């Protein structure tokens, strides 16, 4: 595998969009990996949180938007809480989800029409609503 880097590939409009939407400066991340080390759902991610940020630092927005990671994140904010550099990965993840959903780049990670009856009738409303807003609405 080879990654070709150039000025144009590193800074592009999508990356700036991620920074705007998330309110986070990607260059602040010094890749300590602490976000990944404490993430409760990291086992299921295809890219671990610091890798997502690294790819964004390289301007590789496509790989990131295609990753499973952004749908798996539970928004627990533990990554943000422990980041020594004050980077909120949880917010970056939110922004990435929003970008995919707004641009309709992928089928949403939950199918609202097909939620299980148990879920709709038993699960607490705020749980269902937040899932729909995070994973479907953007």
């Amino acid at each position, binding site marked *: 595998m080879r990654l070709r880097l150039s000025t144009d590939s590193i800074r592009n409009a999508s990356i700036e969009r991620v920074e*705007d*939407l*998330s*309110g986070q400066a990607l260059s602040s991340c010094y890749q300590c990996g602490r976000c990944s080390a404490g993430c*409760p*759902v990291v*086992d*299921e991610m295809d890219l671990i949180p610091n890798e997502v940020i690294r790819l964004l630092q390289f301007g590789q927005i496509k790989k990131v938007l295609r990753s499973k990671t952004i*749908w*798996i994140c*539970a*928004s*627990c*904010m*533990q990554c*943000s*809480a422990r980041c020594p550099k004050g980077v*909120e990965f949880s917010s970056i993840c*939110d*922004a990435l*989800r*929003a970008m995919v959903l707004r641009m309709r780049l992928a089928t949403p*990670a*939950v199918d609202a029409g097909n*939620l299980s009856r148990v*879920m709709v009738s*038993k*699960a*607490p*409303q*705020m*749980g*269902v*609503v*937040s*899932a*729909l*807003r*995070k*994973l479907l609405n*953007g």
Partner: protein
Amino acid sequence: MKIPYYPGCTLHERALDFDMASRECANALGVELEELPVWTCCGAVFPLTTDSVMDILAGVRNLAYASRMGDKVVTLCSFCYNVLKRSNKVIREDEEKREKANLFLKADTDERAEMESYLEQDYVGQVEVLHYIEMLRDVVGFDKVAKSLKTSLKGLRVAPYYGCMLLRPKKEMEFDDPERPTIFEDFLETLGCDVVDFPMKAECCGGFQIVRDEETAIACSQTVLSSAIKRDADLIITTCPLCLYNLDRKQKEMAKRVKGFTKIPVIYFTQLLGIALGIDEEHLDFSDNYVDPRPVLAGKKLV
């Protein structure tokens, strides 16, 4: 003493037990939770992106309603608390968003005229958002709580589970030390319980991921539960209906998956408070819990 109260959708519908227990306890402590006459869903999540004012409106609108009743609003659900508190901070600190939000609120007052939602003044963050536990500590006072207790919970080993939303993001929530919070420990000590400090008390239960993929959330919940079980907790308390759902209801699935899985009851903190205050079990309503806490409580002669 009356305090404006925002129940939120879940306590209004599916977590009626939590709502009832909390009101009963407040009454016993001389506080009347005065539900806002008009309120809407808070939106359940704080906006995903920084570019939207619309997304904080739900929270702000409810705060504006509350501002007509007093300078505080009390809430219980962690998600509501998180959204209200953070929206409030945005209104207090971001001038542009504050102005825009108020324009929206004014526009909506016409339509809601019949709901008497006319705003006499701008909403500028004048309301203090309090969690019920903060109300107990700062308004009622834990010492007064202690004096009102009817039943000693001595010998009951309780693990306080905080979850995510109360504590994080720490700069916005300013609720407690996000790594080693103590407010629920102090509360439990007030009730005379044996506090079980467990390292997973502020780790995630899986949250809304339960809706997307049960496996993901259950793995998280199980980590939390087994940590408390290992430390010989009799039960776990929480203040979040979603945490309770993941931690309690999903023990059914865990039991299927893990051989020798020990169940542990998970209840709302005000249900436990209710027991200590001598409130009738009926008003605390344990009927919804998957893992019935009554055997454990009965074992300690508490019900």
